[in-house]
């Protein structure tokens, strides 16, 4: 029984009270939890969400089927099928696939496109029940992408 014993007891009691006071003060603060499916976070416009093809004013796809994005994609997520109609020199898209299961959302396809025809949407809820649902096609590229 010396002074340091009582000193320790003193410190102990003080810290216990301090800890209790601090934690009870947190009990009445506003929680920071986001109730996710019920409330959603605001997404920045530059967010790299799922890939979509842009359209011009007439509503036609801007893509000129050059194939740059397919080549540069590091994950091999883009596949396209092109056709060259009779009497025309221009290639046209007949199919365009983006496999979101492969895509790493790097944005290289968007950067490399010569005519600015492809972009990221802000859609991030891309979970699917079947693996097949992750593949975006020409007909659902617009549907999944807001």
């Amino acid at each position, binding site marked *: 029984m010396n002074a340091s014993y009582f000193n320790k*007891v003193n410190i102990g009691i003080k810290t216990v009270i301090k800890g209790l006071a601090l*934690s009870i003060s947190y*009990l009445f603060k506003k929680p920071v939890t986001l109730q996710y499916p019920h409330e959603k976070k605001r997404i920045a416009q530059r967010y790299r969400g799922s890939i979509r093809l842009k359209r011009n004013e007439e509503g036609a796809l801007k893509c000129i089927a050059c194939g740059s994005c397919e080549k540069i994609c590091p994950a091999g997520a883009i596949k396209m099928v092109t056709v060259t109609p009779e009497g025309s020199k221009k290639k046209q898209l007949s199919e365009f696939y983006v496999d979101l299961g492969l895509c790493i959302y790097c944005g290289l396809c968007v950067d490399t496109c010569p005519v600015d025809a492809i972009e990221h949407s802000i859609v991030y809820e891309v979970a699917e029940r079947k693996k097949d649902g992750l593949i975006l096609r020409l007909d659902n590229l617009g549907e999944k992408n807001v």
Partner: protein
Amino acid sequence: MDLAMIADSIIVKVILSIAGVMIVFTINALFATWLERKVAGHIQLRLGPMEVGFHGVLQGAADGLKLIAKEIITPKGVDKKLFALAPYLAFFPTLLMFVVIPFSDKLQVRDLNIGLLYFFSISCIATIGIFMAGWASNNKYSLMGAVRSIAQSIAYEIPIILSILSVVIITQSLKLSEIVSYQSKFWIVLVQPVAFVVYVISAIAELNRTPFDIPEAESELVAGFHTEYSGMRFAVFFMAEYTNIFLVSAMATTLFLGGWRGPFFPPVVWFFIKTYALVFFIIWVRWAFPRLRPDQLMSFCWKFLTPVALLNLLITTFFMKIF
């Protein structure tokens, strides 16, 4: 046979008592787990359960259903009989302890002469269940947890008993109804604040709860003695834990806070208000402090709590002798 006779018959009494105890036990298990998760959440600036029922009140029931539906796994190499028996041995004492709790002036299963002694002796049986679980699991983490649990229980039993002895010396009775009726003018906590503090601290240690939860320290022992348990057997351990929280709070209410006494509301309501205030405090402590080391735990008990309780007992005895 008229109604009074039916109510008096021993079988009806037994059935009513069992039903009553089961109701209190079930509601407490659901409510205390919900309260724990809510308080834990809000102290950490989270929300806790929100989905099942209003603000998650039915989460406990949903979890219970899930645990019932789960397969009971008996791992290879365990001592099968002990392994299966242990959870129930840890659990049944908690039901037996309800017998002497005075919920109100009339609502008490049995007003034993030695109610206090009965309560604390029965509570010790649960420790055997815990050790059995650790031993039978054939797993070093379980065994370590069980050994620590025993060491802790033995150590903290002493300050608990010393602190309630001070109360017994004042009230001159081990009968819980008499201890409550003694407090008709003042609560014992007013004359025995030190005993109350010692009791609450040692009770938290007896419950194996943070900051004294070394028997199930997750970061070192996985989950301590119930590492190998799954499904309903785990749920039984879990329910025993929450029932024990209720019981030590109920006992503290009876011994120190005037039991069911209080103005305006009926006695039962007062009893539950006081008890759950203490349950809340125990939960609050859990989320305020980190875990102690085993050696700190032991030296805290032997070098501080026990001497304080002993000194308090001596002073109480001295004053009782003089006045």
